[in-house]
């Protein structure tokens, strides 16, 4: 009886739903307000930027691995940046490093990862029709797009893009006399970042509002998938930290264009003494890292959330320590705001501040360690299925461990004296933040591709992609630890000027070759992605036999996600391999009262309550029906 009335309602709502939208090409694919399409827009744009960012890194790896190489063949792309002897221009080398960092951190791992999956998954997994504000969501993408266009243009201007490192420390970034990239290139960088910050804030406000307000019936915070917890906390971090970057950038604009002295003091450059006094370059560093460090977690938390979901699903086991995972993410969120100055131990700031930040920094290692142990325990005695998404998730855990442990060296100010700004740091953050987050992104794409496009990606190409990338990433970044311990400084065009660094040419060559292979392997993914989008095997409704809500939608969900009523949630998302249950998964939409054989004692008590609520709901439904 109950099911009949629900079914009636379903068809009614479905008809209604179909009449509501008349999408043409522009409103469906370009200025769309559907969170799913916006998520895909972020993904495709992120992939575009990942190729650009990766390509830039190949260019400077060529310089580092093969310093004697004749690069004339690159002249069609790089033009005047390759000089007559076929050597790369040292200024442009710095621009390459800068743009690689900016693009990867902001455009790929922030927008491409958090933008894609927060948009795509939040409404689907909490059971909402769309984001709280579809319009703001659309603006968020188009601000990001605009930001990207401006940054892209800056790559081609005559004086080159910004070249002061992705941290753009003044005075270098403030003075055109110091480096040509600090002219128009830096202006464009600042404008692009302003749009990017606006995009992040619009997105973040939306994610937070949606998670708080639009959860479906029964979806309490303690039943949210860990992905949603991660996206939610990421948005909170972004909302609190991006405005500080904006402030830092704004003051930099004042210093550059309006003659103020926030960051500038006592400078003699290009044969003249500048009038600025009283500013402090260290102030900028404080402001920058107040965003810069939380940014690490902005890119990492979504990846960790995705991994939690993928590992649980493919281990056919509940994630171990669901509450502990949430608490450690909360801990990371809070602590991420009070560790920023560990980037500045030798910046000249008061050493006492260094001691404080060393304590705080090493505390943040504890929740990170808890997460790793929980992942391991989730795998333990599981029934593991190695989908490509699962492989990338395991890869992520490995990078998170390897890169996280080296963070314990760098967070210790005494040890950091030697390691600061050497290749040890490069190895550290590329593993723990770059590669780990990138693997989270990949895991997410492989896992949710069937939902996004209704087709499966090819698993074997996924395996090849995974193994080449996993081994490749280690071959690129593991040797950098040795180079870093030996004291090789970062952002060096060449090391041959120094006796202590005039070695390891073989190792650098090895790293460069590994980087090229790893980069090339990504095209397997690109092929797999676009080919499967049109020619892949048709997906089933729930290909990974997963519990979460997105798999209850139709194969090609329309705008509004569910035809008819949004499903109600009766349990947490991790009821995998529950003793007594016939299948090894019980979706969130299955009431506890329907599974008396597998309910735990405390759940059995909830059944009565659940039945009462269902009865009330039904009365409301019937009442509504009779009004029609």
């Amino acid at each position, binding site marked *: 009886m109950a099911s009949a009335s629900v079914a009636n309602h379903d068809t009614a709502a479905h008809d209604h739903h179909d009449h509501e939208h008349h999408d043409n090409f522009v409103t469906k694919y370009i200025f769309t307000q559907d969170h799913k399409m916006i998520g895909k827009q972020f993904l495709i744009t992120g992939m575009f930027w990942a190729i650009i960012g990766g390509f830039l890194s190949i260019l400077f790896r060529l310089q580092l691995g093969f310093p004697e190489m004749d690069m004339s063949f690159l002249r069609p792309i790089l033009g005047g940046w390759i000089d007559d002897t076929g050597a790369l221009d040292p200024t442009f080398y710095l621009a390459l490093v800068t743009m690689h960092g900016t693009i990867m951190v902001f455009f790929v791992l922030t927008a491409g990862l958090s933008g894609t999956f927060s948009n795509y998954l939040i409404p689907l997994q909490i059971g909402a029709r769309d984001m709280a504000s579809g319009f703001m969501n659309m603006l968020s993408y188009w601000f990001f797009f605009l930001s990207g266009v401006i940054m892209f243009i800056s790559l081609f201007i005559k004086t080159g893009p910004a070249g002061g490192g992705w941290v753009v420390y003044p005075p270098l970034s403030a003075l055109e006399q110091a480096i040509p990239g600090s002219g128009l290139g830096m202006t464009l960088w600042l404008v692009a970042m302003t749009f990017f910050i606006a995009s992040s804030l619009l997105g973040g406000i939306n994610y937070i509002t949606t998670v708080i307000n639009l959860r479906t019936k029964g979806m309490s915070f303690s039943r949210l998938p860990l992905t949603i917890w991660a996206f939610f906390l990421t948005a909170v971090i972004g909302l609190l930290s991006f405005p500080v970057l904006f402030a830092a950038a704004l003051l930099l604009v004042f210093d550059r264009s309006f003659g103020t002295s926030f960051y500038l003091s006592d400078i003699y450059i290009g044969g003249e003494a500048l009038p600025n006094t009283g500013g402090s370059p260290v102030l900028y560093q404080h402001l920058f890292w107040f965003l810069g460090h939380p940014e690490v977690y902005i890119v990492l938390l979504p990846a960790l959330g995705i991994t939690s979901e993928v590992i649980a699903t493919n281990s056919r086991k509940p994630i171990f320590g669901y509450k502990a995972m949430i608490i450690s993410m909360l801990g990371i969120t809070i602590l991420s705001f009070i560790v920023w100055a560990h980037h500045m131990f030798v910046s000249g700031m008061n050493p006492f501040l260094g001691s404080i930040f060393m304590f705080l920094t090493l505390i943040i290692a504890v929740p990170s360690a808890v997460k790793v142990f929980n992942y391991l325990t989730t795998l333990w005695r599981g029934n593991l299925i190695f989908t490509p998404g699962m492989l990338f998730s395991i890869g992520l855990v490995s990078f998170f461990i390897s890169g996280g442990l080296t963070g314990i060296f760098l967070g210790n100010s005494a040890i950091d004296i030697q390691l600061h700004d050497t290749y040890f740091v490069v190895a550290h953050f590329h593993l723990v933040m770059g590669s780990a987050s990138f693997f989270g992104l990949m895991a997410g794409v492989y896992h949710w591709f069937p939902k996004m496009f209704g087709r499966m990606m090819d698993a074997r190409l996924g395996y090849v992609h995974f193994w080449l990338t996993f081994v490749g990433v280690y071959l690129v970044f593991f040797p950098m630890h040795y180079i870093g311990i030996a*004291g090789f400084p970062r952002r060096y065009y060449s090391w041959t000027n120094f006796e202590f660094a005039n070695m390891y040419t073989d190792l650098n060559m090895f790293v460069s070759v590994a980087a090229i292979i790893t980069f090339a392997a990504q095209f397997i993914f690109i092929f797999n992605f676009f080919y499967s989008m049109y020619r892949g095997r048709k997906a089933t409704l729930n290909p990974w036999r997963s519990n979460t809500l997105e798999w209850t939608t139709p194969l090609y969900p329309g705008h509004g996600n569910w035809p008819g009523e949004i499903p109600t949630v009766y349990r947490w998302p991790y009821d995998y391999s529950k003793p007594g249950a016939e299948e090894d998964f019980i979706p969130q939409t299955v009431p506890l009262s329907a599974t008396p054989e597998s309910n735990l004692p405390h759940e059995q008590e909830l059944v009565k309550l659940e039945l009462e609520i269902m009865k009330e709901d039904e009365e409301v439904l019937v009442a509504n029906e009779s009004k029609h």
Partner: protein
Amino acid sequence: MYGFLIGVGVLLLLSIIWMVYRIQTLVSVVKGSDKKVASGSNKVNAILFVLFLVGSGILMFWYSIKEFDNYQLPIASEHGMVTDQLFWITMAVTGVVFLITHVLLFIFPYKYQYSEKRKASFYPDNNKLEIIWTIVPGIVLAGLVISGWMAWSDITAPAPEEAHVVEIMGYQFAWEVRYPGTDNVLGDYDYRLITASNSHGVDFTDKNSIDDFPSPKVVIPKGEPVLFKIRARDVLHSVFAPHMRLKMDAVPGMPTRFWFVPTKTTAEMREELGDPEFEYEIACTEICGRGHFSMKKVIEVVEPEAYQKWLAEQKSFIQMNPSLAEGLPAETKELAEIQLKK
């Protein structure tokens, strides 16, 4: 020619991948393996994890041991002994964690690979375990932090009174060195006084500056405390002396400092390394523009007696360029003239 060959290679590779891809898709359709929960590749992936663990483990140990003398730079300062010891203690602690977690991470996939006959164990939480692995890392980290903090406090404590002062000024793209002379006090400076003949912007109206002298390299005595006073003239730089385990940013408008005690003379280090060309070097580790990679300065560590002798031989700014003393107030001018007569 190379371009053509590379092009052909890429084309070949792509077509091979394409064929393999098509064949395996067809095979999987024929075998119906696409309907199964976990195909044969599940086992292959599980085995690959173990192979990766063993292979990369062997490679790591082999290379770390073989290359030890190459990447472990010899230490030439007192605090360097302490920070390096901390480094290797941390390496031991994290190394153990690294190995254990990775062995588990890659063995579990092999041991618990999918089987239709088995069901995963429903094991959602265990608060006792969570508390243990919160507290244990907490204690270990506390130990590391406290030892690090003690070392850091000693290193950053104010320099001893008798420390030999050396000023290092970074600019695009080199370092300049100034010694305080016999009074061991550097004269004032002002960036607005910088001219072609006064690149440091030394204020010669300050009495202390009269005996200041420049040096093409940093010369310091072994076994005695040395205080680097560090500043920058244009953009950020960073003084990095790898053998001294010393690093400190040079900031325009905000002088910084780092003191240390060198423990081996250049000659001793040359003998130890069997390299008669060896020099201690300073490099720049804060991005500063086009020539960032070429900001080199040599440090020469000598025996204290040789250092005193070297000090006595040096000529002050004023001695090298008497015109700097022109237009000084009477009192300082007198001092300058005494200098000039030496």
